């Protein structure tokens, strides 16, 4: 059997590291292993790296948690929630700027990664959001970071309304910062932006990122832990199990 492709790819373009979610046939759905590898890739970045681009291979950025896994294994959801929380903390705390390139859909756990980035590039056709209350899952795990990217009001709207929004709407509420006309322009634009950010004096950039974290109250684990605990408390609830089971019994092909 050939080796499975790595769930995360790392490429370097000069001082810019490009991390790619690499399960294109599964819409880059997150597994505990993918999230752990993502964190490992971020932690392993060399000193010479001055900016990071986070992207996804294939047509979508990331469809969120692998729901087949959540359905089949009762331990998967808690592990995914912990893994996502760790990934968001890790990217928030990187000393170099993080640019997310959401060329396609960024849903639920995938959209959570956008809130971990400093700059988000998307396109008008992309669909973004946190439709997880439909599945009896609380997006609380990401609320601590999201409310510092967009307002508390918009966080409430996006967390409670299970609808997806367009890239245009994402830019309007501040979830994305650049909304392009075409999906194929997203990654090159993000890499260009990352090079621009990489050209700045790194100590000033790192100090500014540290200060912003402190002002956001995200230098401590408190807000992350609170959200993670709220999501974990519902993992395995009858509501969650029934709704995830219904995804398959109804022959739902969304996942």
């Amino acid at each position, binding site marked *: 059997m050939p080796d499975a492709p790595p769930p995360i790819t790392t490429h370097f373009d000069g001082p810019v590291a490009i991390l790619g979610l690499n399960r294109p046939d599964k819409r880059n759905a997150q597994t505990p292993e993918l999230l752990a590898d993502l964190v490992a890739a971020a932690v392993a970045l060399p000193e010479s790296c001055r900016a990071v681009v986070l992207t996804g291979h294939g047509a979508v950025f990331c469809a969120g948690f692998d729901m087949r896994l959540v359905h089949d294994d009762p331990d998967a959801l808690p592990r995914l929630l912990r893994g996502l929380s760790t990934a968001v903390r890790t990217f928030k705390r990187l000393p170099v700027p993080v640019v997310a390139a959401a060329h396609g859909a960024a849903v639920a756990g995938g959209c959570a990664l956008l809130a971990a980035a400093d700059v988000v590039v998307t396109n008008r056709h992309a669909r973004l959001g946190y439709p997880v209350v439909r599945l009896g899952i609380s997006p609380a795990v990401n609320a601590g970071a999201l409310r510092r990217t967009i307002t508390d*009001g918009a966080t*409430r709207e996006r967390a409670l309304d299970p609808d997806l929004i367009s890239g245009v709407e994402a830019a309007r509420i501040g979830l994305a910062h650049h909304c392009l006309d075409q999906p194929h322009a997203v990654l090159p634009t993000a890499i260009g932006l990352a090079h621009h950010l990489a050209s700045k004096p790194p100590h000033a950039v790192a100090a500014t990122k540290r200060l912003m974290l402190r002002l956001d109250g995200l230098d401590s684990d408190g807000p992350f832990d609170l959200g993670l605990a709220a999501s974990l408390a519902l993992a395995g609830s009858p509501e969650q199990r029934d709704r995830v089971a219904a995804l398959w019994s109804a022959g739902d092909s969304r996942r």
Partner: protein
Amino acid sequence: MSNLATLRVDGPIARLVINRPDARNALSIELLGALHDRLDELTHTHAGAHVLVISGAGKAFCAGMDLKQIVGDAALAGRLLSGLGDLTTKIRRLPLTVLGAVNGPAIGGGCGIVTVCDLAITFADNKMGFPEVDLGICPAVVAPWLVRKVGPGRARQILLTGGLMSGAEALAHGIVTQCVPTLADLEPAVEAMATRLAAGGPAAMRATKSLLNELDGSMDDAILREAAAISASIVGSPETQATLKARLKA
């Protein structure tokens, strides 16, 4: 039972109507009492509902505090302001997701009710806003909610500028979630959103709202009590009383 506020529950969706159309749904002490009663009834006897839609009867959503009741009687004005503060807190802490259907003017305390809703929809040329400073009133009761909703920078601009804004501007400021072109488009948009919200997992939505309340300071009672006291002291001042009397005569 007072019919100043009506409650109807239909499966997962409850509907609260502010029902004083002859006074543009202005918040009198009696109306505030009726709204409190209906919300208590909702939490105590309709456990199956997990989405609440709030709208106004007639042409207005809510014209704000009943100015007639805050002129002359300082004690009554104080009770009105703390009653509004308590109402906004009660709405925020409901274990239901609250959708404001802003069917007409939402002014002052009325716009405060919109602000405290989890989501809100209005139409483009509606009139909304916080003209408190224009009347010599401090919008203290709504200020903490507006800061939580749109952020401190925008809240400062909105509250210090006073005046009114259109529904489209309310969307740009983040006071409402969605703005439809005309009043005729409102009901279908509200029904679509209410249906969508009702399809969410009730336990997941309750837990999410509760966490958001904890993160954004919505559980902080001290600031709201202080705000109501500040507002009451400004309303009771001779300058403000004179401004309000002149306004009522006009």
